[in-house]
C-alpha cells in the first residue's frame, strides 16, 4: 500500500500512508482513537475507496475492486463489532465464510442435485473444522444472539479463517476479552502467521507487542513510525503521540517489552 490518502468531506482520515505487509508476518497497526486505523482497513478490504495512492497484493492492483472481489482473492477481515448473521446458526455463519470455496451453482441447488449436497457436505466439514480450531464446535447449532460476546468473537474469527485467506485483517479482536482469552488469542494469531499474513489493529499494547513482527503507528491519518516492535517502542514520536492521549498505554508497552522479546525468541 503506497501513498494512500482518504478524506471524508473535509476530514483527512489518511494522508499518504504507505505500508507493506510481508507474507507470513503479523503486522500491527496502532494509534490513538481517530488515527485512521479502521479507515485503512476499509481501504484494504474495499469498503472505502482511496482517493489516491495504490494498493497492490501479489502484483495485483486492488484500489478499484469491491469487497467481495477482494474476499475472493483471499483477503478476509473481521469487523470491529462482531457482525455475525443473526438469523443463521453458528455453523451457517461459518459456512458463509467459506463462500469462495463453494462450487455448486444455481442449477444444482434448484434441482437439489447430488452435486449440491456434496458441496454442502464439504462446506459443513470445513466450517466444523474451523469452529473446532477455535474451540467453538459445541455452539454449531446455536444462534449468535444467544451466545456470550467472547464466543461470538471466536465465531466471527472462524468465519474469517474458514476461507483460508492469504491476508487476514483483524480489527480489535481482543476488545471485550478477558486476560486468559486474550493470551489464547495471541497464541492463535502467532500460529496463523505461518499460513497467512495478518494485519492487526489492537489497543492492547501487550498483545500487539507480543504477537507482531512489525508495527506501524498512525496519528491523525499520518504515519509516524514503522518498524519492528523494538524500534517502534524506542521511537520518541510514538511516545509523544501516546502521551497526548493515554500515558498508560505507552507505559504498558514499554514495560512489557523485555518479557515479550524473550517469549518470542523462545517460540522461534
Amino acid at each position: 500500500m503506497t501513498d494512500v490518502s482518504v478524506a471524508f468531506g473535509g476530514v483527512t482520515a489518511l494522508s499518504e500512508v504507505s505500508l507493506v505487509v510481508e507474507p507470513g508476518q503479523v503486522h500491527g497497526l496502532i494509534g490513538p482513537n481517530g488515527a485512521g486505523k479502521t479507515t485503512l482497513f476499509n481501504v484494504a478490504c474495499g469498503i472505502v475507496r482511496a482517493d489516491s495512492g495504490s494498493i497492490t497484493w501479489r502484483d495485483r492492483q486492488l484500489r478499484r475492486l469491491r469487497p467481495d472481489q477482494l474476499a475472493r482473492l483471499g483477503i478476509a477481515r473481521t469487523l470491529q463489532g462482531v457482525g455475525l448473521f443473526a438469523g443463521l446458526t453458528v455453523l451457517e455463519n461459518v459456512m458463509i465464510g467459506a463462500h469462495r470455496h463453494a462450487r455448486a451453482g444455481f442449477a444444482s441447488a434448484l434441482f437439489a442435485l447430488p452435486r449440491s449436497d456434496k458441496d454442502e457436505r464439504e462446506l459443513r466439514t470445513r466450517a466444523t473444522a474451523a469452529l473446532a480450531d477455535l474451540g467453538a464446535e459445541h455452539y454449531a447449532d446455536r444462534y449468535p444472539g444467544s451466545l456470550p460476546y467472547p464466543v461470538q468473537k471466536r465465531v466471527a474469527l472462524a468465519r474469517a479463517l474458514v476461507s483460508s485467506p492469504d491476508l487476514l485483517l483483524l480489527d480489535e479482536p481482543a476488545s471485550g476479552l478477558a486476560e486468559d482469552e486474550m493470551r489464547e488469542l495471541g497464541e492463535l494469531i502467532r500460529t496463523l502467521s505461518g499460513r497467512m499474513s495478518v494485519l492487526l489493529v489492537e489497543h492492547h499494547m501487550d498483545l500487539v507487542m507480543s504477537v507482531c513482527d512489525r508495527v506501524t503507528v498512525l496519528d491523525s491519518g499520518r504515519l509516524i513510525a514503522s518498524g519492528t516492535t523494538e524500534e517502534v517502542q524506542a521511537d520518541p514520536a510514538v511516545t509523544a503521540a501516546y502521551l497526548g492521549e493515554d500515558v498508560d498505554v505507552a507505559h504498558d508497552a514499554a514495560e512489557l517489552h523485555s518479557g515479550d522479546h524473550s517469549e518470542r525468541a523462545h517460540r522461534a
Partner: protein
Amino acid sequence: MSDLQTQGQPPAGNPATAAAPASTSSRTSRIPLPESTLLRHLLAVLVCAVAAVVLLEITDPFRNSQLATLSYYAIAAGGLTVLTGLNGQISLGHGALMAVGAYTTGLFLSADEPLPLPLIFLAAVVVTSLVGALVGAAASRLHGPYLAGATLALAVGLPGLALKFKETLGGDQGLRVRAPRAPDWFGEAIKAVSGNPASATKWLAYVGAIALLITYFLLANLVRSRIGRTWRAVRDNDVAAELAGIRLGSWRVLAFVVSAACAGLGGAVLAIVVRLAAPSAFTLVLSLALLTAIVLGGLGSLLGALIGSALLVFLPQLTTDLGSAAGLDGTEAAQLAPFVYGVVLVVAMIFAPAGFVGTIRLRWLARRAKRAIARESGR
C-alpha cells in the same frame, strides 16, 4: 410439509431460546429421512400430491375452484416470501408481475394453434423473470422505503400498459383467456381414482396444484441450499456478507428473478382459472394481499406462505357465511370480510408477530431449550 419450511427466522428476542441446545443429537427425528435433499423433498412432494388428490376428490366443484384460487395465490406468495423473508427485500409490485404472467399466458393461448400448456407456462415464467431482472437490478440499489416506493410505482404503472395497448391487451376490459380443455386421459384417470366426473374446473384445479407442487419443490431446494443461506446472510448483514465474498447486487437480483418467476407462474395459473387477464385484477390490492399472506403465515416460510394464502382465500367466504348465519343480508355479510381481515392481522401482530409458522417454531425452540437445561442440571 414441515420439511419444506425454512430456518429463516432468527429466534432473537425470545429469552427462552437463549439456551437452545447445541447437541446435534436432538435433531434426529423419529422417522429416518433420506440423506439426499432430492429424495427428501421428492418424498414430501409425493405426500403432498396424494393429499392434494384426496382434497380435490372429496370436495365439490365450488371448493375445487377455491383450491385453484389458493394455488395461484400460494405460488406467488411462495416467491414473495423468499424475496422478503429470506432476502429482506420488500416488493409492492408482485401483483404487477403476476399480470405479466397472466397476459403472456392469455396471448399465447389466443393463438390459433396454441402451444402445449407447460410450454406456455414456461414462456410466462421466462417473460416475467426478465421483467423481474430489470426491476431487481434497479431494486438492488434501493433500500426500505425507496424500494417499497419503486415497486409501488411498478404496481401502479404496469397495469396501465394494458390500457395503452388496447388492441393486443384488451384495454380496461382485459384479455379473455381461452382456458385449455382437459385432455381425455385426465377424465379417465379421475374416474379410475374416485369415480367423480372430470369437470373443466377440476382440470384447472389439478393444473394449479401441479404448478404449486413444482414451485414449492424447487423453492424448497433453493431455500435448503447454499443459495438460501447466502440470501439470508445478505438480509442479516450486507457488509459482513460482502466481506465474505458475496456480490450483493447479483444475489439481490437473483432473489428478485426467482421471486418474479413464481409471480409469473402464479399469474399464468390465475389467467386460466379466472379465464380473464384484466387490469382490475392486478391492482395494488393484490400485491398487499400477497404481503399479508406471507406475514400472517410467517416470513420466509413456504408452509407459512401456503397457510397465509389459504386464509386469504377461505376467510372472506367463512366470514360471509358466518355473517349470513348471524342474520345479516348478503351485502352486509360480504362487507364483513375486510373487517375480519383487519382484526386477524392485528391479532396476529400482537400474539404471533413471527407469523403462524414462525411462532410455532419459536415455541418448539423454547421447548427444546428447556429440555436441554433440564438435561444439563440433571447431570
